[in-house]
């Protein structure tokens, strides 16, 4: 790589070895070895695994980035270690080093190479974001996502249409201190705290919050989306294998942020359907008391409460979530 230099060799006595060639050979061997290791040995085990399409895409990205980063890292390390060993100061040598102020060829090569690598990474990342298996890479795309799986439903009416295995399953994630609740609008809008998703079907998460900012992180599904009050943040994934899911809150949300986690599982299509219909019946009485399904909620369940409170002179920037004389909610 950029190792060779045209600086004149110092010292007339012994012939100066070709340092550039030596470094290049060491680099070639180690870079190849580390890339092979990353690709074939480490690669299949890289997080977040391959339970779902979005997770799969992230795993692939991490693998590719590692394979591209390793040669660069190895090069810099070898260059440093080689220099430190070969050109260390010898006892009694009080002379200064050779006055090399720079080397245009080396500089241009380095700048070109790093630029090319960076542009490749950008192209790759963008391609993966748009065309990768995750449809938006599993990350929250806000209320109007640009990368959607076929049949995505973004309005309340669409989302409340009865469930069908041919279009994405809609799950609304409602975050609050310090719990996630999952609402299934296609099954009458029942709410549960257990996250069940079907295998081989796109899942659309509509993430929102009713108090502070949280972050819905379904690790094995490769989904991460901030839960903002008053915002519907959409993320997609397609579970590919059966297995269990860990959900953690990934944005500090107050005292019990560390305890804000729960579990779920990927089920077969039929198991999911029977779970969902059973849950719908089981929770029917509770569902009746819930506010009608919407993409965001006002936690006080009074429409335009904020405006009303302002009129009454009862609130300020407390947000109106907790009237001022309520105990504080850090």
């Amino acid at each position, binding site marked *: 790589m950029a190792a060779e230099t045209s600086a004149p060799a110092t010292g007339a006595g012994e012939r100066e070895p070709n340092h550039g060639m030596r470094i290049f050979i060491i680099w070639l061997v180690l870079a190849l070895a580390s890339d092979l290791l990353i690709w074939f040995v480490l690669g299949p085990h890289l997080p977040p695994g391959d339970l779902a399409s979005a997770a799969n895409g992230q795993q692939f990205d991490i693998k590719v980035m590692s394979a591209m980063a390793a040669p660069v890292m190895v090069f810099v390390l070898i260059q*440093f270690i080689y220099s430190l060993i070969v050109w260390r100061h010898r006892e009694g040598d009080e002379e200064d080093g050779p006055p090399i102020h720079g080397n245009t060829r080396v500089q241009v090569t380095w700048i070109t190479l790093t630029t090319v690598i960076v542009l490749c990474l950008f192209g790759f990342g963008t391609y993966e*974001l748009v065309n990768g298996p995750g449809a938006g890479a599993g990350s929250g795309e806000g209320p109007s996502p640009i990368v959607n799986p076929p049949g995505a439903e973004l309005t309340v009416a669409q989302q409340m249409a009865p469930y069908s295995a041919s279009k994405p399953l809609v799950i609304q994630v409602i975050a609050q201190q310090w719990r996630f609740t999952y609402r299934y609008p296609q099954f009458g809008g029942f709410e549960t705290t257990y996250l069940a998703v079907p295998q081989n079907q796109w899942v659309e998460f509509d993430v929102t919050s009713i108090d502070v900012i949280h972050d819905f992180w379904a690790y094995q599904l490769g989904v991460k989306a901030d839960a903002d009050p008053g915002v519907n943040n959409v993320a997609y994934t397609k579970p590919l294998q059966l297995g269990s899911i860990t959900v953690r809150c990934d944005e500090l949300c107050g005292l019990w942020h560390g305890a804000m986690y729960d579990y779920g599982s990927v089920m077969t299509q039929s198991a999911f359907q029977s779970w969902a219909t059973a849950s719908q019946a089981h929770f029917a009485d509770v569902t009746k008391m819930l506010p009608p399904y919407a993409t965001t909620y006002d936690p006080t369940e009074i429409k335009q409460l904020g405006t009303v409170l302002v009129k009454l002179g009862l609130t300020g920037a407390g947000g109106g979530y907790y009237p001022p004389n309520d*105990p504080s909610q850090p």
Partner: protein
Amino acid sequence: MAIETEAGTTQRPGGPDPVGTPGAGAWWARPALHTGVIGAIIGYAFGHWLGNYWAVPTANSPAAYQQIGTSDGNDFAIVLGYTFMLVGWLIGLGVFNDLVKLMLGKRLPQNGHEANGGVAKYFRFTLDHKVVGIQYLIGMIIYFCTAGLLAMGIRTELLSPVHHVFSSSVYVEIVGEHGTMMMMLMTSVILGPFGNYLIPLMIGSKRVAFPRIEALSFWLTPAAFLVLLSALPLGGFHFGWTGYPTLSVQDTSGADAYAFAFGLMGISMILASFNILVTVICYRAPGMRWGRLPMFVWGILGTGTMMALAAPILSGGMYMLLLDRTAQTAFFTDNLGGSTYLYEDLFWFFGHPEVYILALPGFAIVSELLPVFTRKPLFGYKVASAGMIGVTLLSFFVWQHHLFDSGIDPDMRPLYMLTTELISIPTGFIFLVGMGTLWKAKIRFTVPMLFCLAFYFNFLIGGISGVYLSDVPADTTEHGSFFVMAHFHYTIMGGLIFAFMGGCYYWLPKMMGISLNEKLGRVHFWLMFIAFNSTFLPLFAVGLAGQPRRVFEYARNLTTLNDWVSISSFFLGVSILIFIINFVWSTVVVRNRETGNPWKSRGLEWQVSSPPPADNFETVPVVLSGPYEYGVKDAPPVADLNPPVGVLAAGLSESETARAEA
């Protein structure tokens, strides 16, 4: 241009020097730390009383008190208390004395440089940049150690996934205090001590541009530090260093301390950076062309630029947050028409340049020290300065990569992916310069050099892990996890703090006229290097395995890794303790005098005695060549320290001609 010409004239020998506080009188009668504390106490009491007075319920508004307090306390009174405390603190320190004297038409008699020894001057508001530099140094070490102790607390809690040392509330408070203290105060860890002390010496100036502003920038930092700590008795704050609303709007009164302190530190950064920028631009000695500027000065120039442009956004955001908490505004409250995204954008528009504010001084120190200990010119001087300028500019175009998952406009994500990855190109320049300088060198493994080499190692890992975070799909897994946490500790702790340590060992002989014990220095280095990597390397794995940041409970299968990390972090703490012992031992107990140029450096700062004379230079020097001409046959000395008057005048006109041409 007009400013530069004016500066040139003030640089002339015999030109006006900064004038400042008189030196007569008993120590307790002069404004200093103790009068500042008295002023602060009086100010707080008054402000708090005023806030409560205004909030007393009246017949017209019976709910006044409750309206003003958004949490359980009267936040209005607390914030007013802080405000008046700050005013009292500054009055007590005598910050406004000269201003009042000028307004009364009195003369300011004395030169601001503190020629006399004695410890008392370090406790005063002083116009001597060398005293301010030492004040910053001691202050920064105290702040760093306080925040470091809090980190030990975090790691103690994380020894077990289920058994708790702290309550969930105390744990989150510690996390927030550690993060905020480090991120707000360490912005000045290099610019404060080394920048203020050394830059006039490095550019051949007798003074800084704005000595009062410089001193003020320092004296705001203890205030910010103590206000931030005062959050703990107020119930702490529970939202980490980022302070996202609506959590931060709802939180207990500790949040007032957070917002006030962080905003205050923003002002300190603005002041410090303006002084440095103007000093570098206007106060260079004749012959100190841009092409001869030491790399350290380039780095601090970039840092100052970022601070001057980013810190106002921080202060603005923080004071908007304070208004939301006290004055019933709703900038950040969604159902009243505000937006949490507004805060996130304001915060990260500051927050990302801040990361480079923390990285660039590290680049600056290693690029400055490497030529000295390789006995070679810096490889690619222009590439190095271009790298620093590139980082400075690009740092303002990347902030939304912190918000990839937040639900921002998804169209923006490829753009921020691109800009974030682009910034690794100028960062790569710094590595190219490092590798080129080591090429065929005569590397001396002194303690400062060891820290520089460790900087490259740590920053390599930190930088490359940062590229992972710029990739949206990869970031989906890594965002908000311990991976991110490990990444920025590698760049900040492994980069900035290692460079700071290198700077301490390198420049303390210059600044204090004593050298630090080398044996202890080596023990410190190796323990710190090994413990640091042993602490933070496993955290990449912990994060990828799914552990979010700021949690006090984690998956059982991660116990071993977390324990390993915790124990390593205690060793890391011990290594810092060794540094403190070495520092105190060498500067107070043994005092191994060092007056010359122990590193045989060509830097202009080393051409005067150690510690430097009160006025830095007898006359303004004429710079004759670049600072890194090691091994160059017949290289002229770096500067003529006693140019005859005619030569200086010629040099001045020459540099002015050069400027005119450029």
